């Protein structure tokens, strides 16, 4: 009887469901995964808003997320509902009106770090709590379907990234690398949260690669705190790893410290590492490799290639063959780099002296924040350009002689960030060279990414709280709107009823914009209250 009732209810709720092919197809009206596409493009084929009419963009609604102070979340949009996360919470918002549909909060979660977003699969919304529970919710009502713990916060691991779901596997990562932990990437079943595989980003003692460490290998870091990209044809995930621990004291971990500050290519079905590429061997500047591995097919050095592009925190812009992991090319992402002269033929940095953190400090460019960071980049197939937020900033790096102790917020030193300027740069993936740049005013504090469209428009944020539209061809500013606080996340594009919107989270609210339409007065609705 019970069972019969349930199956009846289940059948009734089987409405439209998000399938693998819907996400592979890429965005249209909906925005179904963090970067819009599995390949990390943050590109929308919608073309209602164009470079010619972007001057008519106006705010359509604002939703103030209760208690939010620094939203890092990039929304998911499906069938007119926008899903955004804050720390240990999810909000479903009517994407046309900005009205709340439901909210889910788990305020008893241990830890309270940032959250970068939700994922959608079938009829469920997924996100992770800061203490490593995968939570699945009914997309219509926010009812809990299941929650499963996938890692122990007691071992220094927390969770911040938006899950990426492919072929029924929910891919989650691990944060906490600045305090000592062992990074990993995991696949969990979208049906019930069961663990399907787990791949550590730092080898165990005795395993291949462990010879690149010392005694602290068990706490080596290599956190995987940003979601990655996926090539459905190659069945391969591309995930980046964070810094080795302790961050600023390299003397206690002699060697390359594999597989930190690297890009890993993993088989989706097994989690097996197909190849790895380490951008910053033996990092001592906290230059996590967390920025988006963007997958495109293009001509490089005269040959058509399946390429993964990577603008790295260490100051260089890389192109690798994503089938083999072969290093193809690296160019300067920012103007001022003082720690390396360049990248050699094998992809290793050519080091310059006096770049290591010391007791009295060394002045190094880029700063600890990096030449770029986790903010979303956009690849536009119309212009053939990649749009990357970069930061021209240097800082002092210090090393502490204190004995490293894991899980005590000890990072082996510290760093300062001094001055600096954010510059949005358009890069040509074929050559690695800059095509144009858009410098901003501000203090280098923003975390805004970019989105670009078939309408030839880039949406992004200035470093001072202005949401802006730029011409994707030449970077010309077309429109701006002051949201009144810092922008700390990446925008998305969607449509409802054939009308195009662009939405972004600021520090405390979600804004959605669209083309101006004259208002029409609304007759008071007939509402009858019934006893």
């Amino acid at each position, binding site marked *: 009887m019970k069972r019969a009732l349930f199956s009846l209810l289940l059948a*009734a709720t089987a409405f439209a469901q998000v399938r693998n092919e819907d996400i592979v197809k890429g965005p249209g009206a909906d925005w179904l995964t963090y970067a819009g596409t599995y390949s990390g493009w943050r590109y929308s084929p919608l073309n209602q808003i164009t470079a010619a009419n972007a001057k008519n963009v106006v705010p359509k609604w604002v939703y103030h997320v209760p208690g939010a102070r620094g939203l890092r979340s990039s929304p998911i949009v499906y069938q007119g509902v926008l899903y955004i996360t804050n720390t240990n919470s999810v909000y479903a918002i009517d994407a046309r009106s900005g009205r709340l549909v439901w909210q889910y909060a788990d305020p*008893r*979660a241990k830890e309270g770090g940032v959250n970068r977003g939700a994922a959608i699969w079938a009829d469920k919304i997924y996100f992770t709590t800061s203490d490593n529970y995968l939570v699945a919710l009914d997309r*219509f*009502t926010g009812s809990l379907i299941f929650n499963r*713990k996938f890692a122990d916060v007691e071992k220094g691991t927390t969770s911040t990234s938006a899950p990426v779901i492919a072929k029924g596997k929910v891919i989650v990562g691990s944060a906490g690398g600045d305090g000592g932990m062992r990074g990993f990437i995991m696949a969990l079943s979208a049906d019930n949260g069961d663990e399907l595989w787990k791949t550590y980003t730092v080898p165990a003692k005795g395993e291949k690669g462990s010879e690149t460490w010392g005694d602290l290998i068990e706490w080596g870091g290599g956190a995987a705190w940003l979601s990655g990209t996926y090539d459905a044809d190659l069945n391969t995930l591309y995930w980046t790893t964070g810094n080795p621990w302790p961050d600023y004291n390299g003397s206690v971990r002699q060697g390359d410290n594999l597989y930190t500050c690297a890009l890993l290519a993993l088989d989706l079905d097994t989690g097996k590492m197909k190849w790895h590429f380490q951008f910053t061997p033996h990092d001592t500047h906290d230059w996590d490799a967390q920025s988006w591995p963007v997958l495109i097919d293009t001509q490089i050095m005269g040959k058509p290639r399946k390429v993964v592009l990577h603008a790295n925190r260490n100051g260089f812009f890389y192109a690798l063959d994503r089938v083999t992991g072969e290093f193809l090319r690296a160019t300067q992402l920012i103007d001022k780099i003082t720690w390396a002269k360049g990248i050699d033929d094998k992809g290793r940095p050519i080091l310059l002296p006096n770049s290591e953190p010391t007791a009295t400090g060394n002045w190094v460019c880029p700063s600890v924040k990096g030449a770029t960071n986790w903010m979303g980049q956009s690849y536009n197939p119309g212009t053939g350009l990649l749009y990357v937020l970069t930061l021209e900033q240097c800082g002092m790096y210090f090393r502490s002689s204190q004995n490293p102790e894991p899980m005590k917020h000890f990072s082996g030193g510290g760093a300062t960030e001094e001055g600096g300027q954010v510059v949005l740069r358009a890069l040509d993936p074929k050559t690695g060279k800059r095509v144009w740049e858009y410098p901003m005013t501000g203090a280098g504090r923003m975390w805004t990414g970019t989105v670009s469209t078939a309408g030839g428009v880039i949406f992004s944020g200035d470093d001072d709280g202005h949401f802006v539209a730029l011409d994707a061809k030449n970077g010309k500013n077309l429109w701006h709107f002051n949201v009144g606080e810092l922008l700390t996340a990446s925008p998305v594009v969607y449509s409802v009823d054939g009308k195009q919107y662009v939405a972004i989270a600021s520090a405390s609210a979600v804004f959605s914009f669209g083309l101006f339409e004259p208002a029409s007065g*609304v007759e008071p609705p007939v509402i*009858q209250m019934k006893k």
Partner: protein
Amino acid sequence: MRALALALLAFPLLAQHGRYLSDSNNPAIGDPKAIAAGTKLFMGSCAGCHGPDGGGGARGPNLVRRSLWHPLSDDAIFQVIRKGVPGTDMPPTKLADDQTWHLVAFIHSLTGPASTNPVPGNAAAGKDIFWGAKAGCANCHAIRGQGGRLAPDLSNVGGSRPLAVIRESILEPAKDLSYLGNEAATVELKNGQTITGVAKNRSNYSLQLVDAKGRLHLLQMADVKKLTISESTSMPTDFAKRLTRDELRDLLAYLATQDIRLETAKGSK
């Protein structure tokens, strides 16, 4: 169709501070002996103002209800007992630390989430009542993905509500006057279509409605001919008669165990 006292259920989600973030690690919390000792202290010194069950009196607020809109951590309750509330009738005390913790343990047993307190009854028997036809809870309420979608999800009811509030919600579901966010609604559209369900949100301009099949409808009020909203709860109000005392106790014991922070075996509910 609406079930538990819905307005009550909406409140604690908004409280991002206090109890739900920082439960004390003091061993007195949840310890039956400490709670018993705290009961004696409470009856002697606190019940005069706050009522014997913490339900409030002429001079002191209802501690149980207050915990829903202004939850305090155990440590904060400790400090209030110690220091009093200046400018009110609540005086400071000179109780020893362990006695103060006994008192906190008793207050926690009244106002803390049911899952963190000793609860009488047989949860296994209560599970059958919840999912059975006599009570019919699952027709409208869901727990961990099973059950109805119209009424509030109860997967975390024990982890977020004091036992007294859950009991009251079952026995007197119509006691609350505002159901905003969970109103039973029937909407007639200008195109002739009629949809019945729960209004998750509404304004003069838009309506977000979940229908009986659990599907979400995002409507413009410009398309609405008439919206009918029920002023009362659609949860049955006869559970005091429908269930025996033992059945109610067991149902409460089962609901008290529903806590999203408790590890559950795969597929269990």
